Protein backbone atom coordinates (compact mmCIF):
# COMPACT_ATOMS: atom_id res chain seq x y z
CA UNK A 1 0.00 0.00 0.00
CA UNK A 2 2.74 2.41 0.97
CA UNK A 3 4.68 1.60 -2.17
CA UNK A 4 1.74 2.27 -4.44
CA UNK A 5 1.06 5.62 -2.87
CA UNK A 6 4.69 6.70 -3.16
CA UNK A 7 4.72 5.97 -6.88
CA UNK A 8 1.62 8.07 -7.33
CA UNK A 9 3.13 10.70 -5.08
CA UNK A 10 6.26 10.86 -7.17
CA UNK A 11 4.24 11.38 -10.34
CA UNK A 12 2.15 13.99 -8.60
CA UNK A 13 5.22 15.89 -7.52
CA UNK A 14 6.72 15.82 -11.00
CA UNK A 15 3.49 17.22 -12.40
CA UNK A 16 3.48 19.86 -9.74
CA UNK A 17 6.95 20.93 -10.75
CA UNK A 18 5.95 21.27 -14.36
CA UNK A 19 2.64 22.99 -13.77
CA UNK A 20 3.19 25.37 -10.87
CA UNK A 21 3.28 28.97 -12.02
CA UNK A 22 5.44 30.00 -9.08
CA UNK A 23 7.39 28.73 -6.15
CA UNK A 24 4.71 29.34 -3.48
CA UNK A 25 2.16 27.46 -5.57
CA UNK A 26 4.59 24.60 -5.88
CA UNK A 27 5.13 24.46 -2.12
CA UNK A 28 1.41 24.59 -1.55
CA UNK A 29 1.04 21.55 -3.75
CA UNK A 30 3.75 19.73 -1.85
CA UNK A 31 2.09 20.49 1.47
CA UNK A 32 -1.24 19.22 0.18
CA UNK A 33 0.27 16.03 -1.18
CA UNK A 34 2.03 15.45 2.13
CA UNK A 35 -1.18 15.90 4.09
CA UNK A 36 -3.04 13.44 1.88
CA UNK A 37 -0.29 10.89 2.46
CA UNK A 38 -1.12 11.01 6.15
CA UNK A 39 -4.79 10.40 5.73
CA UNK A 40 -7.77 12.17 4.30
CA UNK A 41 -9.78 12.77 7.43
CA UNK A 42 -8.35 16.24 7.95
CA UNK A 43 -6.93 15.41 11.35
CA UNK A 44 -3.41 16.20 10.18
CA UNK A 45 -2.20 19.45 8.72
CA UNK A 46 1.07 19.68 6.84
CA UNK A 47 3.15 22.78 6.29
CA UNK A 48 6.38 23.17 4.37
CA UNK A 49 8.95 25.83 5.13
CA UNK A 50 11.78 26.87 2.86
CA UNK A 51 14.38 29.44 3.89
CA UNK A 52 16.48 30.51 0.95
CA UNK A 53 19.92 31.97 1.29
CA UNK A 54 19.24 33.27 4.78
CA UNK A 55 16.28 35.27 3.59
CA UNK A 56 12.65 35.33 4.66
CA UNK A 57 11.00 31.94 4.46
CA UNK A 58 8.31 30.79 2.12
CA UNK A 59 5.69 28.78 3.96
CA UNK A 60 2.90 26.70 2.49
CA UNK A 61 0.18 24.99 4.42
CA UNK A 62 -2.48 22.41 3.64
CA UNK A 63 -4.92 24.23 5.88
CA UNK A 64 -5.70 27.66 7.27
CA UNK A 65 -4.94 26.45 10.78
CA UNK A 66 -1.50 25.34 9.66
CA UNK A 67 -0.83 28.75 8.18
CA UNK A 68 -1.67 30.43 11.46
CA UNK A 69 0.53 28.02 13.36
CA UNK A 70 3.49 28.64 11.12
CA UNK A 71 3.03 32.37 11.35
CA UNK A 72 3.27 31.95 15.09
CA UNK A 73 6.45 29.99 14.68
CA UNK A 74 7.93 32.79 12.63
CA UNK A 75 6.78 35.39 15.07
CA UNK A 76 8.94 33.67 17.68
CA UNK A 77 11.60 32.74 15.11
CA UNK A 78 11.62 29.36 16.78
CA UNK A 79 9.67 26.14 16.78
CA UNK A 80 9.91 22.50 15.86
CA UNK A 81 9.71 22.97 12.09
CA UNK A 82 12.26 25.79 12.02
CA UNK A 83 14.56 23.69 14.17
CA UNK A 84 14.12 20.64 11.94
CA UNK A 85 14.82 22.73 8.85
CA UNK A 86 17.77 24.68 10.19
CA UNK A 87 19.44 21.84 12.03
CA UNK A 88 18.36 19.22 9.54
CA UNK A 89 17.16 16.81 12.19
CA UNK A 90 13.87 15.12 12.97
CA UNK A 91 11.72 16.58 15.73
CA UNK A 92 8.91 14.50 17.21
CA UNK A 93 6.58 15.78 19.91
CA UNK A 94 4.16 12.95 20.75
CA UNK A 95 2.31 15.03 23.34
CA UNK A 96 2.49 18.82 23.37
CA UNK A 97 1.21 18.98 26.91
CA UNK A 98 4.23 17.19 28.30
CA UNK A 99 6.95 18.86 26.22
CA UNK A 100 8.82 21.82 27.56
CA UNK A 101 10.71 22.98 24.50
CA UNK A 102 9.61 26.03 22.49
CA UNK A 103 7.11 26.76 25.22
CA UNK A 104 5.68 29.94 23.70
CA UNK A 105 5.06 28.29 20.41
CA UNK A 106 3.66 25.06 21.84
CA UNK A 107 1.27 27.06 24.01
CA UNK A 108 -0.09 28.72 20.90
CA UNK A 109 -0.32 25.38 19.12
CA UNK A 110 -2.22 23.81 21.99
CA UNK A 111 -4.75 26.65 21.81
CA UNK A 112 -5.31 25.73 18.19
CA UNK A 113 -6.09 22.16 19.20
CA UNK A 114 -2.80 20.60 18.19
CA UNK A 115 -1.70 17.71 20.36
CA UNK A 116 1.27 16.22 18.54
CA UNK A 117 3.81 17.46 16.06
CA UNK A 118 6.30 15.83 13.73
CA UNK A 119 8.90 17.92 11.91
CA UNK A 120 11.00 16.30 9.21
CA UNK A 121 13.99 17.98 7.57
CA UNK A 122 14.09 18.14 3.76
CA UNK A 123 17.66 18.28 2.47
CA UNK A 124 18.29 20.94 -0.14
CA UNK A 125 21.37 22.91 -1.17
CA UNK A 126 23.98 24.45 1.13
CA UNK A 127 22.30 27.85 0.93
CA UNK A 128 18.75 26.84 1.84
CA UNK A 129 16.86 25.07 4.61
CA UNK A 130 13.60 23.20 4.28
CA UNK A 131 11.32 21.16 6.49
CA UNK A 132 7.97 19.43 6.54
CA UNK A 133 5.85 20.05 9.59
CA UNK A 134 2.90 17.84 10.53
CA UNK A 135 0.33 18.82 13.13
CA UNK A 136 -2.21 16.36 14.54
CA UNK A 137 -5.14 16.94 16.86
CA UNK A 138 -4.50 13.86 18.95
CA UNK A 139 -1.62 12.59 21.03
CA UNK A 140 0.77 10.02 19.65
CA UNK A 141 -0.57 10.46 16.11
CA UNK A 142 2.79 9.64 14.55
CA UNK A 143 3.74 5.97 14.80
CA UNK A 144 7.17 4.58 13.97
CA UNK A 145 5.84 3.52 10.58
CA UNK A 146 4.47 6.98 9.89
CA UNK A 147 7.78 8.54 10.83
CA UNK A 148 9.57 6.14 8.48
CA UNK A 149 7.09 6.84 5.69
CA UNK A 150 7.55 10.57 6.08
CA UNK A 151 11.31 10.13 6.06
CA UNK A 152 11.07 8.47 2.65
CA UNK A 153 8.64 11.12 1.50
CA UNK A 154 11.06 13.85 2.60
CA UNK A 155 13.81 12.25 0.52
CA UNK A 156 11.53 12.20 -2.52
CA UNK A 157 10.53 15.82 -1.89
CA UNK A 158 14.18 16.76 -1.57
CA UNK A 159 14.89 15.80 -5.16
CA UNK A 160 11.93 17.68 -6.52
CA UNK A 161 12.50 20.68 -4.27
CA UNK A 162 16.10 21.07 -5.37
CA UNK A 163 14.93 21.27 -8.96
CA UNK A 164 12.21 23.73 -8.04
CA UNK A 165 14.73 25.91 -6.23
CA UNK A 166 16.79 26.11 -9.39
CA UNK A 167 13.75 26.62 -11.60
CA UNK A 168 12.28 29.38 -9.48
CA UNK A 169 15.48 31.25 -8.80
CA UNK A 170 16.09 32.68 -5.39
CA UNK A 171 15.18 36.28 -5.04
CA UNK A 172 17.55 39.01 -4.14
CA UNK A 173 18.05 39.14 -0.40
CA UNK A 174 17.38 42.60 1.00
CA UNK A 175 20.47 42.60 3.22
CA UNK A 176 22.70 41.53 0.37
CA UNK A 177 21.23 44.18 -1.87
CA UNK A 178 21.75 46.85 0.73
CA UNK A 179 25.39 45.89 1.15
CA UNK A 180 25.88 45.71 -2.60
CA UNK A 181 24.41 49.20 -3.07
CA UNK A 182 26.77 50.53 -0.42
CA UNK A 183 29.73 48.92 -2.10
CA UNK A 184 28.65 50.07 -5.53
CA UNK A 185 28.32 53.69 -4.45
CA UNK A 186 32.00 53.77 -3.52
CA UNK A 187 33.09 51.78 -6.56
CA UNK A 188 31.12 54.14 -8.80
CA UNK A 189 32.82 57.17 -7.29
CA UNK A 190 36.27 55.64 -7.69
CA UNK A 191 35.47 54.60 -11.25
CA UNK A 192 34.34 58.17 -11.98
CA UNK A 193 37.65 59.55 -10.76
CA UNK A 194 39.71 57.04 -12.71
CA UNK A 195 37.66 57.74 -15.84
CA UNK A 196 38.36 61.45 -15.50
CA UNK A 197 42.02 60.86 -14.76
CA UNK A 198 42.52 58.55 -17.72
CA UNK A 199 40.04 60.23 -20.08
CA UNK A 200 38.59 56.77 -20.55
CA UNK A 201 35.44 54.74 -20.14
CA UNK A 202 33.93 52.70 -17.34
CA UNK A 203 35.23 49.32 -18.48
CA UNK A 204 38.81 50.51 -18.47
CA UNK A 205 38.42 52.17 -15.11
CA UNK A 206 36.99 48.98 -13.61
CA UNK A 207 39.97 47.07 -14.93
CA UNK A 208 42.32 49.50 -13.22
CA UNK A 209 40.45 48.99 -9.97
CA UNK A 210 40.49 45.23 -10.29
CA UNK A 211 44.18 45.23 -11.06
CA UNK A 212 44.93 47.39 -8.05
CA UNK A 213 42.86 45.08 -5.87
CA UNK A 214 44.56 41.94 -7.16
CA UNK A 215 48.10 43.28 -6.98
CA UNK A 216 47.59 44.62 -3.48
CA UNK A 217 45.66 41.52 -2.46
CA UNK A 218 42.83 43.72 -1.27
CA UNK A 219 39.10 44.02 -1.82
CA UNK A 220 37.93 46.30 -4.60
CA UNK A 221 35.79 48.23 -2.16
CA UNK A 222 38.83 49.02 -0.02
CA UNK A 223 40.84 50.23 -2.97
CA UNK A 224 37.87 52.27 -4.15
CA UNK A 225 37.49 53.88 -0.74
CA UNK A 226 41.15 54.87 -0.75
CA UNK A 227 40.90 56.38 -4.20
CA UNK A 228 37.87 58.45 -3.25
CA UNK A 229 39.72 59.69 -0.20
CA UNK A 230 42.45 60.99 -2.44
CA UNK A 231 45.03 58.25 -2.24
CA UNK A 232 46.21 55.67 -4.72
CA UNK A 233 45.38 57.42 -7.98
CA UNK A 234 48.43 57.74 -10.20
CA UNK A 235 49.20 61.25 -11.44
CA UNK A 236 48.33 64.69 -10.05
CA UNK A 237 46.17 64.49 -6.97
CA UNK A 238 43.48 66.98 -6.02
CA UNK A 239 44.60 68.93 -2.98
CA UNK A 240 42.69 68.81 0.23
CA UNK A 241 39.91 66.58 -0.91
CA UNK A 242 39.34 65.22 2.56
CA UNK A 243 36.08 65.08 4.48
Amino acid at each position, binding site marked *: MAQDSSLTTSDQMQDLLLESPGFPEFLLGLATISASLLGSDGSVTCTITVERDGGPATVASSSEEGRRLD*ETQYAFDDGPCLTAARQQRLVLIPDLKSDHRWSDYLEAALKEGVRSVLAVPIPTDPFSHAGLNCYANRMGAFSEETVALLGEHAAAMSRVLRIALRLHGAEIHPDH*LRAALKSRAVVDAAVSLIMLQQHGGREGALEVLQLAAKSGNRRMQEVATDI*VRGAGLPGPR*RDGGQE
Partner: protein
Amino acid sequence: MTNPEPSLESFSALPQGAPAIQASPDMEGRLQELVLVSKDVISFLTDLAVLASARLSTPGNRIHTGVTVIRRKRPEALASSDAAARALDELQNGFGDGPCLTALRNGTTLLVPDLTDERRWAPYVKAAQENGVSSILAVPMDLSGEAEGVMNLYSGCSSGFTAEDISTAEAFASQAASSLRLVLRIAQLSEARNDLAIAMQSRTVIDMAIGAIMAENRCTRDAAFKILTKASSARNIKLREVAAAVISSISGEKQIDTYFDE
Protein backbone atom coordinates in the same frame (compact mmCIF):
# COMPACT_ATOMS: atom_id res chain seq x y z
CA MET B 1 -17.76 59.48 -6.49
CA THR B 2 -17.26 59.87 -2.78
CA ASN B 3 -13.98 61.13 -1.42
CA PRO B 4 -11.65 58.22 -0.89
CA GLU B 5 -9.93 57.82 2.45
CA PRO B 6 -6.49 59.41 2.62
CA SER B 7 -4.58 56.17 2.81
CA LEU B 8 -6.29 54.88 -0.30
CA GLU B 9 -6.01 58.11 -2.17
CA SER B 10 -2.80 57.07 -3.80
CA PHE B 11 -4.62 54.46 -5.80
CA SER B 12 -7.46 56.64 -6.86
CA ALA B 13 -5.52 57.71 -9.84
CA LEU B 14 -7.99 59.79 -11.81
CA PRO B 15 -9.94 62.96 -11.35
CA GLN B 16 -13.43 62.21 -10.17
CA GLY B 17 -15.92 61.12 -12.73
CA ALA B 18 -13.47 59.47 -15.10
CA PRO B 19 -13.95 55.81 -15.96
CA ALA B 20 -12.09 53.60 -13.51
CA ILE B 21 -10.40 51.32 -15.98
CA GLN B 22 -8.17 54.04 -17.31
CA ALA B 23 -6.49 54.06 -13.92
CA SER B 24 -3.79 51.78 -15.33
CA PRO B 25 -1.25 54.30 -16.67
CA ASP B 26 -1.17 56.32 -13.50
CA MET B 27 -1.13 53.17 -11.43
CA GLU B 28 2.04 52.16 -13.19
CA GLY B 29 3.57 55.51 -12.44
CA ARG B 30 2.55 55.17 -8.83
CA LEU B 31 4.07 51.75 -8.57
CA GLN B 32 7.21 52.96 -10.26
CA GLU B 33 7.44 55.58 -7.57
CA LEU B 34 7.24 52.92 -4.92
CA VAL B 35 10.39 51.37 -6.30
CA LEU B 36 12.10 54.69 -6.60
CA VAL B 37 11.52 55.79 -3.06
CA SER B 38 12.44 52.55 -1.42
CA LYS B 39 14.82 52.89 1.48
CA ASP B 40 17.62 51.27 -0.44
CA VAL B 41 17.44 53.76 -3.26
CA ILE B 42 17.40 56.67 -0.85
CA SER B 43 20.34 55.17 0.96
CA PHE B 44 22.27 54.84 -2.29
CA LEU B 45 21.54 58.44 -3.25
CA THR B 46 22.57 59.58 0.22
CA ASP B 47 25.89 57.82 -0.24
CA LEU B 48 26.27 59.63 -3.54
CA ALA B 49 25.58 62.99 -1.88
CA VAL B 50 28.02 62.27 0.93
CA LEU B 51 30.75 61.14 -1.47
CA ALA B 52 30.29 64.18 -3.67
CA SER B 53 30.44 66.56 -0.73
CA ALA B 54 33.51 64.83 0.67
CA ARG B 55 35.30 64.82 -2.64
CA LEU B 56 34.60 68.41 -3.61
CA SER B 57 34.94 70.13 -0.25
CA THR B 58 38.21 71.85 0.57
CA PRO B 59 39.28 73.68 3.71
CA GLY B 60 37.33 76.93 3.59
CA ASN B 61 34.92 75.66 0.96
CA ARG B 62 32.46 73.21 2.42
CA ILE B 63 30.14 71.69 -0.18
CA HIS B 64 26.63 70.51 0.66
CA THR B 65 24.92 68.08 -1.70
CA GLY B 66 21.29 67.15 -2.10
CA VAL B 67 19.37 64.97 -4.52
CA THR B 68 15.89 66.06 -5.54
CA VAL B 69 13.54 63.87 -7.49
CA ILE B 70 10.29 64.64 -9.26
CA ARG B 71 7.40 62.72 -7.73
CA ARG B 72 3.80 63.30 -8.73
CA LYS B 73 5.07 66.15 -10.84
CA ARG B 74 6.41 67.85 -7.73
CA PRO B 75 10.03 68.07 -6.70
CA GLU B 76 10.97 66.30 -3.50
CA ALA B 77 14.25 66.34 -1.58
CA LEU B 78 15.05 62.64 -1.45
CA ALA B 79 18.61 62.42 -0.16
CA SER B 80 21.27 64.72 1.20
CA SER B 81 24.80 64.80 2.54
CA ASP B 82 23.68 66.72 5.62
CA ALA B 83 20.85 68.72 7.14
CA ALA B 84 21.96 71.95 5.50
CA ALA B 85 21.74 70.39 2.05
CA ARG B 86 18.30 69.04 2.76
CA ALA B 87 17.13 72.43 3.97
CA LEU B 88 18.51 74.15 0.86
CA ASP B 89 16.85 71.61 -1.44
CA GLU B 90 13.55 71.99 0.36
CA LEU B 91 13.89 75.75 0.18
CA GLN B 92 14.20 75.60 -3.58
CA ASN B 93 11.43 73.03 -3.94
CA GLY B 94 9.19 75.26 -1.89
CA PHE B 95 9.71 78.09 -4.34
CA GLY B 96 9.01 75.68 -7.18
CA ASP B 97 11.72 77.31 -9.25
CA GLY B 98 15.44 77.74 -9.08
CA PRO B 99 18.65 76.69 -10.83
CA CYS B 100 18.39 73.06 -9.74
CA LEU B 101 14.81 72.68 -10.90
CA THR B 102 15.70 74.38 -14.16
CA ALA B 103 18.61 71.99 -14.64
CA LEU B 104 16.29 69.10 -13.95
CA ARG B 105 13.67 70.29 -16.38
CA ASN B 106 16.18 71.06 -19.12
CA GLY B 107 18.28 67.98 -18.57
CA THR B 108 21.55 69.92 -18.63
CA THR B 109 24.11 70.86 -16.01
CA LEU B 110 23.70 74.36 -14.68
CA LEU B 111 26.28 76.44 -12.83
CA VAL B 112 25.57 79.64 -10.92
CA PRO B 113 29.06 80.93 -10.12
CA ASP B 114 27.90 83.84 -8.00
CA LEU B 115 24.41 84.37 -6.69
CA THR B 116 24.99 88.12 -6.34
CA ASP B 117 25.29 88.36 -10.13
CA GLU B 118 22.27 86.18 -10.78
CA ARG B 119 19.10 87.81 -12.07
CA ARG B 120 17.06 84.68 -12.72
CA TRP B 121 14.89 83.07 -10.02
CA ALA B 122 14.98 86.23 -7.95
CA PRO B 123 12.84 85.15 -4.97
CA TYR B 124 14.77 81.93 -4.53
CA VAL B 125 18.20 83.49 -5.05
CA LYS B 126 17.51 86.07 -2.38
CA ALA B 127 16.46 83.41 0.12
CA ALA B 128 19.43 81.21 -0.75
CA GLN B 129 21.85 84.07 -0.20
CA GLU B 130 20.26 84.74 3.14
CA ASN B 131 21.09 81.14 3.93
CA GLY B 132 24.73 81.66 3.10
CA VAL B 133 24.84 80.15 -0.39
CA SER B 134 27.15 81.86 -2.90
CA SER B 135 27.37 79.39 -5.77
CA ILE B 136 25.32 76.46 -6.96
CA LEU B 137 26.02 73.54 -9.27
CA ALA B 138 23.09 71.45 -10.48
CA VAL B 139 23.58 68.16 -12.33
CA PRO B 140 20.49 66.35 -13.68
CA MET B 141 20.20 62.58 -13.33
CA ASP B 142 18.14 60.24 -15.46
CA LEU B 143 17.12 57.81 -12.78
CA SER B 144 14.99 55.25 -14.53
CA GLY B 145 12.91 55.92 -17.56
CA GLU B 146 10.16 58.15 -16.26
CA ALA B 147 11.96 59.28 -13.13
CA GLU B 148 14.08 62.38 -13.14
CA GLY B 149 16.35 63.75 -10.51
CA VAL B 150 18.95 66.40 -9.96
CA MET B 151 22.05 66.48 -7.80
CA ASN B 152 22.41 69.89 -6.22
CA LEU B 153 25.67 71.19 -4.85
CA TYR B 154 25.86 74.30 -2.71
CA SER B 155 28.91 76.32 -1.79
CA GLY B 156 29.32 79.26 0.54
CA CYS B 157 32.08 80.68 -1.67
CA SER B 158 31.56 82.50 -4.91
CA SER B 159 33.09 80.59 -7.81
CA GLY B 160 33.02 77.65 -5.45
CA PHE B 161 33.20 75.07 -8.28
CA THR B 162 36.10 74.65 -10.69
CA ALA B 163 35.81 73.09 -14.13
CA GLU B 164 37.30 69.94 -12.66
CA ASP B 165 34.65 69.99 -9.94
CA ILE B 166 31.93 70.12 -12.55
CA SER B 167 33.41 67.15 -14.39
CA THR B 168 33.69 65.22 -11.16
CA ALA B 169 30.11 65.96 -10.15
CA GLU B 170 28.82 65.01 -13.59
CA ALA B 171 30.78 61.77 -13.57
CA PHE B 172 29.55 60.87 -10.08
CA ALA B 173 25.95 61.61 -11.03
CA SER B 174 26.17 59.76 -14.32
CA GLN B 175 27.66 56.59 -12.85
CA ALA B 176 25.18 56.60 -9.99
CA ALA B 177 22.21 57.09 -12.30
CA SER B 178 23.36 54.24 -14.50
CA SER B 179 23.80 51.98 -11.50
CA LEU B 180 20.36 52.83 -10.23
CA ARG B 181 18.78 52.12 -13.58
CA LEU B 182 20.38 48.68 -13.58
CA VAL B 183 19.23 47.77 -10.11
CA LEU B 184 15.75 49.21 -10.43
CA ARG B 185 15.16 46.87 -13.33
CA ILE B 186 15.94 43.96 -11.16
CA ALA B 187 15.54 44.55 -7.47
CA GLN B 188 12.45 43.58 -5.60
CA LEU B 189 9.90 46.12 -4.71
CA SER B 190 9.40 45.20 -1.08
CA GLU B 191 11.43 46.45 1.84
CA ALA B 192 13.38 44.03 3.96
CA ARG B 193 10.90 42.07 6.09
CA ASN B 194 11.89 42.37 9.69
CA ASP B 195 11.68 39.89 12.54
CA LEU B 196 8.53 38.18 11.42
CA ALA B 197 10.19 36.71 8.35
CA ILE B 198 6.97 35.40 6.89
CA ALA B 199 6.81 35.44 3.15
CA MET B 200 3.24 36.00 2.14
CA GLN B 201 1.67 33.36 -0.01
CA SER B 202 1.22 34.66 -3.52
CA ARG B 203 -2.43 33.92 -3.78
CA THR B 204 -3.45 35.70 -0.57
CA VAL B 205 -1.43 38.81 -1.31
CA ILE B 206 -2.69 39.08 -4.85
CA ASP B 207 -6.27 38.51 -3.72
CA MET B 208 -6.00 41.26 -1.16
CA ALA B 209 -4.46 43.65 -3.62
CA ILE B 210 -7.14 42.90 -6.19
CA GLY B 211 -9.79 43.54 -3.59
CA ALA B 212 -8.21 46.84 -2.70
CA ILE B 213 -7.94 47.95 -6.30
CA MET B 214 -11.53 46.89 -6.97
CA ALA B 215 -12.74 48.90 -4.02
CA GLU B 216 -10.69 51.93 -4.85
CA ASN B 217 -11.42 52.07 -8.55
CA ARG B 218 -14.91 50.57 -8.40
CA CYS B 219 -13.93 48.15 -11.12
CA THR B 220 -14.36 44.46 -11.75
CA ARG B 221 -12.02 41.76 -10.54
CA ASP B 222 -10.75 41.24 -14.08
CA ALA B 223 -9.98 44.89 -14.51
CA ALA B 224 -8.18 45.00 -11.18
CA PHE B 225 -6.12 41.99 -12.10
CA LYS B 226 -5.21 43.58 -15.42
CA ILE B 227 -3.97 46.66 -13.63
CA LEU B 228 -1.73 44.55 -11.45
CA THR B 229 -0.35 42.38 -14.21
CA LYS B 230 0.27 45.31 -16.49
CA ALA B 231 2.28 47.07 -13.81
CA SER B 232 4.17 43.88 -13.13
CA SER B 233 5.23 43.25 -16.72
CA ALA B 234 5.86 46.88 -17.57
CA ARG B 235 8.22 47.26 -14.66
CA ASN B 236 9.54 43.72 -14.70
CA ILE B 237 8.58 43.34 -11.06
CA LYS B 238 6.98 40.14 -9.81
CA LEU B 239 3.23 40.25 -9.50
CA ARG B 240 3.42 39.28 -5.85
CA GLU B 241 5.72 42.20 -5.10
CA VAL B 242 3.50 44.67 -6.88
CA ALA B 243 0.56 43.33 -4.88
CA ALA B 244 2.54 43.52 -1.65
CA ALA B 245 3.33 47.16 -2.30
CA VAL B 246 -0.34 47.92 -2.90
CA ILE B 247 -1.25 46.33 0.40
CA SER B 248 1.58 47.97 2.31
CA SER B 249 0.52 51.33 1.07
CA ILE B 250 -3.10 50.78 1.96
CA SER B 251 -2.40 49.34 5.38
CA GLY B 252 -0.43 52.47 6.09
CA GLU B 253 2.80 50.84 7.14
CA LYS B 254 5.06 53.53 8.56
CA GLN B 255 7.75 53.59 5.91
CA ILE B 256 5.25 53.84 3.11
CA ASP B 257 3.11 56.47 4.84
CA THR B 258 5.77 59.12 4.55
CA TYR B 259 5.95 58.70 0.80
CA PHE B 260 2.31 59.42 0.14
CA ASP B 261 0.22 62.44 0.84
CA GLU B 262 -2.20 61.96 3.69
